């Protein structure tokens, strides 16, 4: 799954807010805490973040409001300039790009979806979606044709002449999504795209989003403050607090092995059975005798609940998508997860 060369790579990225922050940053030594920086009159919105995002991965950045997740994603797209560290996109140091090169990068490689949609109120759905193409200087006809394609993709056919005001929240965000996809970006940033929507619509949009992702296979950075959403969508989750990444790992690993107390607070309330997959509890076979049908490594314990309770075997063989034996799932551990008795 992971490619050798990451699409986005950040090395100890810092972002401080406050008067003359660059100078203050140059005086910092070691790894100052959020508190000590705050006492100096600065806000450390992003603190020493190092992350690699391989091609095709969906990384969800999760954190409460003020944790710096939105700032981090704006550092990745250079909507704001970072105070320290480096961000590389496709091997280019984006901090070193000139204004023109940056605009080129955005015009060709990046798309972004915003929490409050960021639509232009005076433009129709079609013109909003065609806006990035217009900025690129494409002619009216091409623009229109491409925009119509994306409109179809997000299921807004027939509404292309509406104005944003005339659409529901979910529809407006579909426009936002369509606009960000219009230039066929490699990298897709989504900043809490569903937070402003009603719970039912949110669920529907998440499904829609997963469908699109399966179809398009982009590299995605997705911001959310909703842990359930993160679990539902992520390949990997990065949990942020006070500007720093507390833990970055696969969802089930985070649930099973929270790195810090802070992370544990999130995982505590979670129905682990729905998150933890067979592969997470899997142990090496080591010559144990396994009988009967294998379970899929990607199946959650919740999916397997009936089997685990009714089947008397002490351990189940675990097989990959191709049917190859990967390891075994001890029954007792699976039952512990189901009953929430451990970890």
């Amino acid at each position, binding site marked *: 799954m992971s490619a050798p060369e990451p699409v986005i790579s950040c090395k100890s990225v810092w972002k401080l807010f406050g008067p003359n922050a660059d100078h203050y940053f140059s005086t910092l030594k070691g790894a100052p805490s959020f508190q000590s920086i705050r006492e100096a009159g600065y*806000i450390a919105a992003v603190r020493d973040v190092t992350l690699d995002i391989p091609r095709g991965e969906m990384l969800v950045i999760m954190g409460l409001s003020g944790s710096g997740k939105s700032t981090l994603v704006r550092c990745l797209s250079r909507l704001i300039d970072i105070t320290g560290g480096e961000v590389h996109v496709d091997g280019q140091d984006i901090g070193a790009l000139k204004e023109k090169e940056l*605009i080129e990068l955005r015009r*060709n490689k990046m798309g972004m979806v*915003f929490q*409050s949609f960021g639509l232009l109120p005076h433009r129709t759905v079609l013109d909003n979606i065609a806006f990035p193409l217009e*900025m*690129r200087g494409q002619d009216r006809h091409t623009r229109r044709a491409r925009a119509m394609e994306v409109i179809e993709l997000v299921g807004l056919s027939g509404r292309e*002449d509406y104005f944003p005001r005339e659409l529901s929240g979910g529809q407006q965000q579909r426009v936002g999504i369509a606009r960000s996809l219009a230039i066929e970006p490699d990298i897709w940033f989504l900043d809490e795209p569903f937070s402003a929507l009603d719970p039912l619509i949110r669920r529907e949009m998440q499904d829609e989003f997963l469908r699109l992702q399966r179809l398009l296979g982009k590299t995605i950075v997705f911001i959310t403050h909703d842990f359930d959403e993160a679990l539902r969508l992520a390949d990997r989750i990065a949990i942020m607090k006070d500007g720093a990444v507390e833990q970055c790992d696969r969802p089930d690993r985070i649930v099973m092995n929270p790195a810090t107390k802070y992370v544990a607070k999130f995982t505590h309330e979670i129905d682990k059975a729905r998150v933890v997959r067979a592969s997470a509890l899997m142990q090496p076979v080591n010559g144990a005798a396994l009988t009967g049908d294998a379970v899929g490594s990607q199946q959650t314990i919740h999916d397997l609940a009936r089997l685990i309770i009714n089947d008397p075997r002490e351990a189940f063989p675990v097989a990959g998508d191709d049917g190859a034996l990967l390891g075994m799932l001890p029954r007792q551990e699976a039952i512990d997860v189901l009953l929430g008795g451990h970890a």
Partner: protein
Amino acid sequence: MSIAITDTPPVGGGLTRIRMAQILLIVALGLIVAKTVLPAGLIRPPEWLVWPFADWINAAFRFMRDDLGLIHVTRAIADGIEWLLDVTANLLYGKSRWPNIGPIPWTVIASSAAIIGYALNGWRLALLSGGTFCWIAIMGQWTWSMETLSVIVVAAPFSILMGLLMGIAAWRSALFEKLLNPVLNIAQSMPHFAYMIPVVVFIGVGPKAGAVVTIIFSVPPMIRMTLLGLKKVSDEVIESGKMSGATQLQLLWSVRIPTARTDILVGVNQVIMQCLAMVVLASFIGMPGLGQKLLQLLQALKVGRSVEIGITIVLLAVMLDRCSKAWAMRQPQHHDKGTPWFVRHRLALIWAVLTLVLLGLAQVVPLFDQISRRQALSLAGPLDAVVDWFIVVVDPVTTWLRWFLIVWVLIPLRDAFLFAPFSAVLMLIAAAGWAIGGLRSAAICVAFFGFIAMSGWWDRAMITVYTVTVSVAIATVIGFPLGIWASRNQARAQRMLLVCDTFQTFPSFIYLIPVVMLFGVNDVAVVGAVVLFAAVPLIRYTIEGLRGVPHEMVEAAEMSGATYGQTMWKVRLPLALPTIMVGVNQSVMFSLFMVIIAAFIGTQDLGQEMQRALSSSDVGKGLVLGTAVAFMGLLVDHLVQTWGARRRALLGL
């Protein structure tokens, strides 16, 4: 992302502030009591303190005009404007200039206005805009109105464009904004006559001068609204533009300005209203049309006819206000797919057909082309009769009122204001400043009034202060209860606001005559005229403040068993107070404008000197007097704003 540091001032700080204010107050009272033994230098500004600002300004202007040759630049600009004015003058009332096709028949203009009204907001607005032009034509005021409009249709777009550009410049450069802000503050509180004088010097007289002074007067709100609108565009919209790969320029023209559309259009609305407010005043330096006619009629004491013109100005103002507001609020609407083009452009088609028909008719039936004065109607007879009757009927009351106010209220107060040593007045002002905003406010307030002392117009300034104080006090006594009464329900509030609008746009010069007829040439008439004007913002903001109180709070009070009176006094009024204070602030501003105009009744204050400065084209004197008046307004503005900000913070509003 911003640093949110909320610290409340320590309790001790509040105490010392009040104590300091008390000390200053005692010093001021001491100075008043001890006036007889004070050295002359503390009673009136000593000679060394009075600086010849006017001479300096005049020297600077002479230098700019003659040595720098600025007059050639301004004249060149004025010539450009004049060319545009000639075009509109030809189209609207047939002045013999290029393109020599006018005048457009009145029926065509009236029907076009009606269709625009309909397109903007349906039948009612169509009726209003079409009806306004019909009224103008039927009352025989067509040529004058077109003269007025021919200037406005040039001045307003100019203001809008300049305001937009300067607003953008201020938004891009924090330094420019910092420089611009005080200039705008002073410009918006300076009496109109003050900047008419430099216009006469640099531009001359006539329609072009009228246009220029109108532009200068109407630009500030456009700048402010553009700046506000651009600042208000949400970060996400801008980020979405950036992520779409927009360059700085694309971001400005395709994202920021269209998104700030509503605010910018509110600015446009303000520009139009300010243009109409200048119709009468600008005629002092040669703007033709309704204002000029109005002054001529008043000079011959034709009250009825001038009221007719006043009604026209109000109608035009209301119409343009409603149209531009409707335009600002209008949201784009899509047409369903497959709508044929003649349905999409239905109104444009109707307009084109109607215009052609009317143009044809105008060739055949002269009444469709122009209505001459002789064919016109007039309400002047009955109006004059009503005014006469009213004045005779109320004569006993006004005679008594005149006597009472003069003898027992105005003369004693006026003497008191003039009695106070200037040092005591400065101390009082410092005390007020300190009580409200500490050292900083005290320093600002004293600086404002210090300039007035140094300008050499102390006594006259005190008379202006006295007139404004009395007027605002009376306006409060009248306006505040009216506002409370009107705020009781929506329908009543709306009717009252309409009355306020009318009073505000009705040319103030017309009030002067009946007021003089009622009270004679004296301070009662002056105060009466000012009160009429000063009560309007008080009523308006009282209504808006009271109606703006959050429903939950009123409901919470009612559920606690409060009566209407208790809810009013304990909940609604305290919460509405910051808004009402804005009304007081506005009331002071309005009074300062009106008190200058009341010089036409006969006063001995700054306004009278301003009138002299205008007739002798004395730029320096005019600007010094104007600045003195502006500083009075800014002083009150500063105090009310500071108080309001603290109060709001306290209430968590």
